[in-house]
């Protein structure tokens, strides 16, 4: 028996060669799973609360409600009413960052070690017993609407949404986690209360931590802060694949001196064996876009490509250029060419080396550690996958990249923001990616 255990341990060790030491998992008394990575290099703590569901928990009418409800909760609670809440934030200089995506909401706390217990107590209390005072509620509404308006006002932000109608009509992800001006304008305090009551359930939550606090102490702090969260939660159905049946293009006119363009295309979902080579391939595309569009042709200041990391995914390419027709045409050509002709092996190896540096940089940031562990746990079912990418990527060849792009890249959904009095809308057509 001992030998079998040893053999399994060796096998796991080889499978997870890059999985860091010092990671522990435990469950709070109400069932909330916790994954903690002890890192003692400094006094900074990172802790993320993930609320699983994202777009699946929203309808067309409630787009943005989860975000809005959480932001309202973070204005004060029964135990820490407004003024005391603000005093606590002043005293600790705690940094709260939040993000709301198609699969989950994430609230991240960054603070000094000694402040972690009191801040988590306040956090737990705000989720369970938010003050929801009328003036603060309206303050959040004003701020959220302004934020949404600014996202629209800046073409560099809004370009990412222009193509959504074409790329994901009727899809679960069409419900925007950040909401719209229209939906946020209509939310009531009752909507917020109901949303928090429904969503703040142990079955919907995951906590990840990275920092110097030891697991045993962390467990005690978390139990006190989040132990009263009721059990239960929602089951979320599989997200349906995207179904793009033809090349499309959506053009939005604005009086801007440079055009912005994004094209989205199909990509493997989480858990699919093609996702890793696909992600590697679009990272190579990223380097090729830089070479062709910027270095060789000087058509842009900014161009890049990548793939999302949700349950269902898409690949994307982005560019800003005063010559959008030529730039988009070349951008499509870069991808099409890579599908046909594998790139030089040394270019591929260069891309991998740069990705390795990125991963090592991430290892030093507690925020990144919390995100990586949580994201992979939610989207792939195992946080260890966050660390094993490079164990597997080294086995790929550049021909593998072309092959995986060939299997997945189909029609493209293009979005363009441009001054159509300068570049006639007739010149825009969806450029084929293959």
């Amino acid at each position, binding site marked *: 028996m001992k030998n079998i255990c040893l053999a399994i341990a060796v096998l796991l060790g080889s499978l997870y060669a890059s999985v860091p030491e010092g990671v522990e998992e435990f469950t709070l008394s109400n069932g909330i799973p916790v994954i903690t990575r002890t890192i003692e*290099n400094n006094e900074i703590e990172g802790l993320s609360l993930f609320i699983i569901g994202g777009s699946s928990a929203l309808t067309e009418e409630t787009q943005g409600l989860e975000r809005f409800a959480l932001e309202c909760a973070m204005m004060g609670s029964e135990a820490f009413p407004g003024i005391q809440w603000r005093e606590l934030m002043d005293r600790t200089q705690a940094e709260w960052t939040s993000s709301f995506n198609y699969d989950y909401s994430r609230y991240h706390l960054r603070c000094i070690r000694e402040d972690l217990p009191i801040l988590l107590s306040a956090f737990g209390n705000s989720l369970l017993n938010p003050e929801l005072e009328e003036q603060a509620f309206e303050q959040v509404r004003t701020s959220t609407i302004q934020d949404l308006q600014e996202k629209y006002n800046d073409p560099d932000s809004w370009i990412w949404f222009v193509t959504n109608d074409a790329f994901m009509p009727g899809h679960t992800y069409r419900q925007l986690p950040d909401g719209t001006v229209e939906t946020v304008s209509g939310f009531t305090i009752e909507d917020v209360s109901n949303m928090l009551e429904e969503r703040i359930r142990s079955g919907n939550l995951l906590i990840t931590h990275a920092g110097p606090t030891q697991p045993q102490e962390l467990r005690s702090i978390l139990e006190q802060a989040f132990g009263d969260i009721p059990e239960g939660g929602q089951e979320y159905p599989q997200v349906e694949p995207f179904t793009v049946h033809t090349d499309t293009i959506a053009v939005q006119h604005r009086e801007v001196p440079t055009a912005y363009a994004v094209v989205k295309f199909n990509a493997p979902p989480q858990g699919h064996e093609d996702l890793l080579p696909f992600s590697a391939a679009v990272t190579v595309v990223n380097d090729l876009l830089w070479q062709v569009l910027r270095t060789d042709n000087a058509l842009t200041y900014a161009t890049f490509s990548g793939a999302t990391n949700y349950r269902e995914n898409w690949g994307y390419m982005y560019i800003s250029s005063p010559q959008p027709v030529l730039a988009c045409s070349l951008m499509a050509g870069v991808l099409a060419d890579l599908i046909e002709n594998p790139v030089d092996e040394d270019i591929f190896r260069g891309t991998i080396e740069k990705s390795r540096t990125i991963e090592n940089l991430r290892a030093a940031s507690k925020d990144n550690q919390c995100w990586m562990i949580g994201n992979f746990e939610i989207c792939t079912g195992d946080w260890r996958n966050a660390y094993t990418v490079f164990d597997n990527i080294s086995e790929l060849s550049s021909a593998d990249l072309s092959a995986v792009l060939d299997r997945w890249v189909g029609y493209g959904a293009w979005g363009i923001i441009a001054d159509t009095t300068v570049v006639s809308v007739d010149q825009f057509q969806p450029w084929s990616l293959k």
Partner: protein
Amino acid sequence: MKALILIFIPFVLSVTAADFETRLLDNGLTVIVSPDDTSPVVTICIAVKTGATCETPETNGLAHFYEHMFFKGNEALPDQTAYNRRMGELGILQNGYTSAEKVQYFITLGSENFQDGLEFIFDAITSPLFDMEEMEREREVIMNEYERNTSHPFWHLWLAQEQVIFADAPWRQSAIGIPAVIQAAAPPAMHAFQQHYYTPDNSALIITGDVDYEEAFELAEEQFGGWEYGGRSDYDSLPLLISIERDTTVFVDSPSGTGYVSVMYEGPSISTHPGDSYPADVWGSYLSLMSREFYTDLVTNGPFINIYGSYYTQRFSPSITFAGMVPPDRAEEALDLLLEEIQQLQSPDYYDEEGIALAKEDLYRHRILAEETSRDVAVESMPFWWVVAGSLDYYSTYQDSLEAVEPSDISEFLETWIANKPRAAFVLMPLDGEENQ
């Protein structure tokens, strides 16, 4: 519900700057090393005392153009394609920033490639080619960067600020520059910049991450020791730039509907009034307290969505700024309230001792959080303080200096820099065809 009681316990957090050592090479190059073995990466940064503040109307934009040419090929790597390939071989991530008072270049790579990384950045900083064909291409890239800036909802506000508070020489604050200069840039202008500013005595080499002191200093000297001393930079003798002569209010049209209000004053230059910068920082930190009057009056019970009041440490363009987002239809009301609040905050009664202690404490915490990774230290902290303050002495004694700030220092700071001093106010909002003022 658990009973939670918030007790305020004042204490002083012990914070020191990131561990570092500095050496001056014979050619005048400052080498700063800060080891951190958390992750097997090294960041190498070169900070140069130059930027838009060194420009004239005829050269406005060239410091930034020069920064772009850093990445375009040098005597070791003949063009950008070769440069890009070498980056891949070494796993290098890179970037560069040009601001009004500083230019910096940095790379991050695996610590096993540290020595090659030093050679890579040495070649780029000391022997850029300024090939005309490459410059022709790069000017189009920079023009696109300019166009992207002009597409931003805040572009016209930024322009207005430059024109009003840096009226004597607005170009010295505009790193992106003027299209006509960008379009005409040629190799001789690049060489002139190189001659003046890209010399070891006008630069600092900052190395952080998975290295040890001796190895890093030794390799730095080996690689950079032959870089020829210049002695031609006029950076340290450039005149102060910021100048607000009279109360001014400028309304800036925002067709997209963004609302923003700011009020600016001249602040103390770190060159001429370094002692004033500490009470200025404590005061700014006090204003950021959400539990105190400034935030409560203007955000909790006022029209602002967010607000800050702070001092920006600079040599030539130090400013004191109060600013925040507002709903566009409340922008004018917000300006009136902000101006009233600024009047009030000149009274010593506006501040309480506990709040001042808290404000200091927050600055310590802020530094810890701002320097989480070795890359943060190499890219964000050290280049800024080395260029702006002239050495890292200011950086390393910062906490002690804050500790010494008394409420009376804050009163004196306010008396010197805000009370009865001219201010420039800016309101970004849709003007619906009204004339800008």
